[in-house]
C-alpha cells in the first residue's frame, strides 16, 4: 500500500502552490509552503508548543533527572497503550459523538486474549480474538447509539459500567496470570525492547501514522469529518451517515482491543480492572491535542502529542521534585491552559 500512498503525502502544500502559480487564478494568502503548513496544522503545532513549554518548566526545575533514560523508558512503556485509544477517539469526537465505553472494551478484549493464551493457544490467535471482540463490542455500542438513537455520552457510559460489571461478575475479581507469555514470539514482536527502547512505541507510532493518513487522505476520514460537520448535508449527498457513525465506534473497539492486549503483555497479568485508569487521561489527551468538542474537525497528530503531554505530567511533576500531591493540580492546569490556547488558536465556523 505504501507505494500508492507515497506521492499523496506531500501533495497538499506542494499542490496548491503549483496550481496557483501556473494558472494565476487560485492564489493562497499563504503561498509559502511553510506558512501553509503552519496554517493547516495550527492545532497540533499549538499542542506541541504546550508540550515543549511544559517540559521546559520541568527541566528547569530539575535538570538532572531529565537526563536519565529511565524516566523516558517508563513513559514509553505506558504511552503506547493510551495512543491506541486516543487516536480512534479523535475520529469519534470529529464525528460529533463520544465514547466512554473504551476502558471496559479494553478490559473485555484483553480478557479474551488472556483466556485464549491461558488455554494454551498461540498469543497471535489471542490477539486476533481480542481484536474481533473489540470490533464486536464497538459495533454493539455504535449500533446502540446510532440505531437506538441514544445519546452517545450516556449510552457509552452505561455500556462501560455494564461490560465492566459483566467482567467482575464472571471473574469475581480474580486476575489471570500469563506466565508462558514471555517465551512467545508475539511477546518478542510486540512487547520486548530494541536498543533499550520498548518496542510497543514503534507499533503505536505506526498506528498513529496510519490513522493520520486515514483521517486526512482517505475516504473514511473525509466522510467522518463531513458527518460531524453537517450530517444533513452528508445525507443529502448520499453518504450513509449511520454507517459512518457505527464505523467510528468499531474503530475505537479495535484500538481498545489492541491497547488492552498490550497492557496485558506488559504486565504478564490480566486484571478485571484492566483499562479502567485510562478513561480520564485518554479523554484529556484528545482535547488537549486540539480536537474541539463540537465535531467536524480534529487532529490525529495533535491527539498523539496530547497523549505524550498527559503521560509526561505525572512523571514530570514527580521528577521535578514536587510531591505526588501536585499531580492532579498540574493535570488540571495543563488541560485548562491547552483549551484556552486552542480557543485562541482556532477559528470556529458555525
Amino acid at each position: 500500500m505504501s507505494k500508492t500512498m507515497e506521492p499523496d503525502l506531500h501533495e497538499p502544500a506542494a499542490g496548491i502552490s503549483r496550481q496557483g502559480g501556473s494558472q494565476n487564478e487560485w492564489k493562497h494568502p499563504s503561498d509559502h509552503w511553510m506558512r501553509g503548513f503552519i496554517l493547516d496544522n495550527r492545532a497540533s503545532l499549538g499542542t506541541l508548543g504546550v508540550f515543549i513549554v511544559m517540559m521546559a518548566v520541568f527541566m528547569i526545575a530539575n535538570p538532572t533527572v531529565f537526563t536519565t533514560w529511565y524516566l523516558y523508558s517508563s513513559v514509553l512503556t505506558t504511552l503506547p497503550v493510551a495512543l491506541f485509544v486516543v487516536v480512534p477517539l479523535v475520529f469519534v469526537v470529529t464525528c460529533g459523538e463520544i465514547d466512554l465505553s473504551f476502558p471496559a472494551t479494553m478490559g473485555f478484549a484483553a480478557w479474551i486474549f488472556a483466556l485464549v493464551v491461558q488455554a494454551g493457544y498461540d498469543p497471535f490467535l489471542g490477539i486476533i480474538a481480542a481484536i474481533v471482540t473489540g470490533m464486536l463490542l464497538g459495533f454493539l455500542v455504535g449500533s446502540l447509539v446510532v440505531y437506538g438513537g441514544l445519546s452517545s455520552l450516556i449510552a457509552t457510559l452505561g455500556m462501560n459500567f455494564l461490560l465492566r460489571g459483566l467482567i467482575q461478575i464472571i471473574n469475581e475479581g480474580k486476575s489471570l496470570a500469563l506466565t508462558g507469555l514471555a517465551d512467545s514470539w508475539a511477546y518478542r514482536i510486540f512487547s520486548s525492547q530494541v536498543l533499550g527502547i520498548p518496542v510497543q512505541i514503534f507499533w503505536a507510532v505506526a498506528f498513529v501514522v496510519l490513522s493520520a493518513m486515514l483521517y486526512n487522505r482517505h475516504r473514511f476520514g473525509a466522510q467522518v469529518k463531513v458527518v460531524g460537520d453537517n450530517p444533513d448535508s452528508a445525507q443529502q449527498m448520499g453518504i450513509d451517515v449511520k454507517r459512518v457513525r457505527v464505523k467510528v465506534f468499531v474503530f475505537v473497539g479495535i484500538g481498545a482491543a489492541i491497547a488492552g492486549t498490550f497492557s496485558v503483555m506488559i504486565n504478564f497479568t490480566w486484571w478485571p480492572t484492566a483499562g479502567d485508569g485510562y478513561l480520564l487521561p485518554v479523554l484529556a489527551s484528545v482535547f488537549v491535542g486540539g480536537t474541539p468538542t463540537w465535531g467536524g474537525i480534529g487532529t490525529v497528530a495533535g491527539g498523539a502529542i496530547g497523549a505524550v503531554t498527559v503521560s509526561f505530567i505525572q512523571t514530570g511533576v514527580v521528577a521535578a521534585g514536587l510531591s505526588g500531591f501536585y499531580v492532579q493540580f498540574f493535570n488540571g492546569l495543563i488541560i485548562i491552559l491547552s483549551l484556552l490556547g486552542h480557543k485562541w488558536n482556532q477559528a470556529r465556523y458555525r
Partner: protein
Amino acid sequence: MAERLIELRDIAKSYGHVYALGGVNLSVDRGEVVGLIGDNGAGKSTLIKILSGVVKPTSGDILIRGKPVTGWNAARSREAGIETVFQDRALAVQQTIVRNIFMGRELTGFLGWLKVSKEIEEASRLMREIGFTSKVFTPHSIVGQLSGGERQGVAIARAIYKQAELIVLDEPTTALSLTETAKVFHFVRQVRASGRSILFIGHNIHHVFDIADRFVVLDRGKVALTADRSEVKSAEDLINFMEDVAHPGGLAGLHDTGAAEQRAR
C-alpha cells in the same frame, strides 16, 4: 428550438383534501434559466420536492427529454440530472471547498485512499467553469471563510460535478447583499453558457427578473403566468401582475408602485 429537458404536465398534489398544487404545467429547456416566482404558500417548495423526487405527485405526468417517466422518485430525479441546491444546510462549513465538492463522491484510488491532487485539479476546473476565480481562495480554503454568494458557487460547482443538467436553486439570493447576489448571477450565467439549465426560485421579483429567460408565476398552487423575457417590459410589470393576481378586483390600483414594490420584496 432548444431541447426540452423536463416537462411537468398537469401536476397536482394534495395533502388530504388540501391542495398544494392544482394542475401545474412547467417546462425547462436546455440552456435556459427559468425564474419561478411565488409568494409564501404558493406551492414552490412542493414543486421543488416533486422535481427532486422526494414527494410524489397525486396526479400528472413528468416527461424527461420528451419521454414520460413512470415511478418517479429521488433516484430517477438524480438520473435525469436534477440537482437541488438549498440555500442553507447544503455545505459543511468547517471543511475545504474540495471536500464539499466531492462530498459523498470522493475521488479515490487504491483501497479508498483519496486522489488529492486529482481532486484539486478537478475542483479548480469546476470552479473555473462557473467563473469562480479568486485571488484569495484556493480549493483548500475553508468554506466558512467564504461569503454567502461564494458558498452558492461551491454548491453550484458540486451540482455540476454530479453531472446535473438542471440545477434547482432554492432562494439562492434571499439572504445576500447586492455584491453577493451579483456573484450568484455571474455563476448562473456561466452555467447557462455551458448549456445547462437552471430553475431559479425566489420571491424577490427584481432578482428573478434580472436573471431569468422565462418567468413562471405560481399562485396558490396554480400557474398564474408564464412569460418570456421579451414579453415582460420591466420588473414593475411583473409586480403589478402579481398584485392583480394576489388581490383581484383592482386592489393594486389603490397603491402606488413604491408600496407594491416593497411588498413584493
